[in-house]
């Protein structure tokens, strides 16, 4: 550089310099040249010359400009505490790249692309996952489903079993053979016409909720509370037939695959690989309940047709669904696992109307004596029923609330 020109334009000021080789702290003089700044020791020797284009500003406390050379392996640093010099530097060097600082533009980009990623993941979750699962689930061999079922079963049992009774399953004791036989007969009659890909293993279990569940692998648990609410064999048969629908449609395998797919998808997005985070669980719950509404409707249709095949009235399923819904109170639609009882009853009604003329008038599924025995399946047995949950009381309140249901 021409000496006279540099003398004309030079601006100088004090700074602190670390050369990146030793940790010596040097008080230096900085000369701002035309294209580069020059770092001079107090005695006048030049320690370094950094072109403006190669400068980067690093994280520093307020009021300090900390400069280095971008891309240099040695973190040599020049610290300018002098406000006048910092301002002069900015005037001369223009905008210096802030290394590692989050700039507003970056922030907008991050937010925008994250929203895009979430939208894309949601679309995949809503349409992609069910589509893939629907195609893959039928291909899962029965043997694999049964193994999966056994592993799900032990987990579900440990959740459901309150441990208050000696036996979780009802009808296992030596003095309830009639109850057990009646239940097995009911299940057997349904299974005979269902044409399922794998054998059903059904049991009544001690849970007070009016519910029944089907697991992958053909396991069906009918809850004690449902037996209490059922007023006729047809109602109970309707529910069991509905669960057989789940087995026929391989819904257990589908549910497991969907849950895994959703945890994976959102877990990956959120960076929570265990899939146990609240956000992951919340999204999974909402999405799964939207999947399951269709699944439930399909299982209803299967169940209703099964009852029609036996020559009985499928409306009984709708009746008991309405009764249960009436007592359990209204639910927010979005979180509802089962479509609203009234809609379901209406759909079943439609199936009944088309089938009724042809096949009505079959023999009762159970005799009155068998039905009475079945109703007592959880009451007799090695252990007396707990005094706090008298089935009579539960049944009474169920009946009372039924007409008030929607």
């Amino acid at each position, binding site marked *: 550089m021409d000496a006279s020109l540099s003398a004309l334009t030079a601006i100088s000021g004090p700074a602190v310099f670390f050369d990146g080789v030793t940790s010596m702290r040097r008080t230096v003089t900085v000369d701002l040249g035309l294209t580069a700044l020059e770092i001079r020791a107090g005695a006048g020797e030049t320690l370094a010359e950094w072109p403006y284009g190669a400068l980067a500003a690093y994280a520093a406390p307020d009021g300090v400009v900390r400069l280095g050379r971008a891309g240099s392996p040695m973190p040599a640093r020049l610290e300018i505490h002098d406000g006048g010099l910092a301002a002069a530097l900015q005037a001369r060097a223009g905008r210096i790249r802030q*290394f590692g600082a989050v700039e507003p533009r970056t922030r907008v980009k991050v937010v925008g692309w994250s929203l895009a990623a979430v939208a894309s993941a949601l679309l995949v979750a809503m349409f992609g996952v069910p589509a893939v699962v629907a195609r893959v689930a039928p291909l899962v061999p029965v043997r694999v489903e049964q193994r999966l079922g056994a*592993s799900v079963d032990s987990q579900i049992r440990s959740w459901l079993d309150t441990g208050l009774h000696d036996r979780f399953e009802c009808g296992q004791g030596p003095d309830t053979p009639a109850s057990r036989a009646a239940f097995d007969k009911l299940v057997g009659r349904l299974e005979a016409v269902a044409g399922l890909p794998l054998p059903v293993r059904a049991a009544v279990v001690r849970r007070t909720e009016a519910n029944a569940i089907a697991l992958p692998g053909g396991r069906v648990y009918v809850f004690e509370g449902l037996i209490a609410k059922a007023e006729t064999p047809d109602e109970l048969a309707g529910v069991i037939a509905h669960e057989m629908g789940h087995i026929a449609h391989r819904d257990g395998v589908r549910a497991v695959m969907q849950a895994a797919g959703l945890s994976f998808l959102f877990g990956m997005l959120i960076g929570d*690989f265990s899939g146990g985070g609240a956000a992951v669980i919340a999204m999974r719950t909402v999405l799964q309940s939207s999947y399951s509404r269709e699944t439930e409707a399909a299982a209803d249709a299967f169940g209703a047709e099964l009852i029609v095949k036996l020559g009985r009235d499928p409306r009984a399923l709708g009746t008991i669904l309405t009764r249960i819904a009436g007592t359990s109170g209204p639910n927010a639609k979005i979180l509802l696992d089962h479509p609203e009882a009234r809609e379901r009853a209406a759909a079943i009604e439609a199936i009944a109307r088309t089938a009724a003329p042809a096949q009505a008038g079959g023999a009762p599924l159970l005799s009155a004596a068998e039905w009475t025995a079945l109703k007592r399946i959880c009451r007799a047995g090695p252990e007396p029923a707990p005094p706090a949950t008298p089935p009579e009381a539960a049944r009474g309140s169920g009946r009372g609330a039924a007409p008030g249901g929607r």
Partner: protein
Amino acid sequence: MSELALVPPPVPPPPIPPPHVPPLRLVPPPIPLRLAATGCFTGRMRAFRRIILRGALLQVVTFGIYRFWLTTDARRFLWANTEIGGDSLEYSGTAMELFLGFLIAIALLVPVYVLLFVGSLELGLVSQVSSMGAFAFLAVFGQYAYYRARRYRLTRTVFRGIRFHQSGSALAYALRSLVWGVITVLTLGLAYPWAQAGLERYKLAHTHYGGWDGKFAGSGTRLFARGIGLWLLLVATLVVVSVIGTHFIDGSALVRVTTRAGAKDPKAGLEVVKLIGLGVGVVVVAGGAYTMLQAIVTRWWLEGLRIGPLAVATKLRKRTIIGAYLRGFLYAALMMIVLSIVISLAVGTIAVALQPPDDVGQLVMVGSAVIAYLVMALGVWVLYQVAVKLRVWRLAVDSISLAGFEAIVHVRADMSLPSSAVGEGLADALGAGGI
């Protein structure tokens, strides 16, 4: 050896002043010789609060992806405002590095995740071995990731133009921490002090500032002596709780409360009150013990730090750390009370003023519960970062002094280079990350 030691060390020849030294050099150096340097935190709480609050909101909007930028922002602030002997630290990492580390971690973890999932579906022995193996694997892998993440942080820490770095093997560290973890569990926590000391020794022995090596001088026995009271307190609490639980609370009455008839039973209600009282007592004791432990360990750790010839001393008072935790806890409690009042007022107003139909009403309830959960989780997180973590950091920095600091001018850089952020990504994906 003793004979050798008796021999007087060779006297170094008196330095001959080189002739070219200018007379200026004979004048004492302008900077006074400091025997000990002190730490000083120069950041303002308001600035940090702004970073954390804005970051928390952006995290919600971006479903957590903003966390790399937030972490970088927070570290830049913390490092830059930590001043030791008049010079501040510098964090030279970038959010993009962290994000990249996260992407690499995903690529590495996806096959592992799939394997673990398939293994958990298998029956019997395979399933049990697989789930136990998964637990052990994730625990060890978490420590592996932690060690690598620590390497990233150290190589992104610059002081006086020299980088920190870390040698050692992440796998060796993870195995050590596994062994110490097993011993700690088997001894019911009694081995915890020695485990901490052993792991800190490994970490510090492999920590370097330029050509200086770190060292951890804290002793497990000393930590044990300081903490055994806490351990006894916890054991005593457990004994008292189990005695009260089995002898003074009627378990069958509690079971009855869950049923319809039992809910109206005043005696059962009394049992519930007793149980809640017991639970609150346990939480208070456990929280207090945790806070005490944090204070004891923080102080012990600071005192044990050595780097090159420098030794850290601290005048940190345990009660100031406990105060920071207590303040954070009180703020959180206050926030929850205010928030629940606001939300119940809002829901109540909607219910009375609009009389929405059942479905909509339910949606409002669920929606407000979700919002309440989000706001509380975020609020507690922000409070914890600002009122507890920053305060403890500030207290710790302000409390330290380094004896022999004049030697700092002799550190020379070595040829270490910044490490990749894969460790940070893994630690993040395994839930072991943090600011």
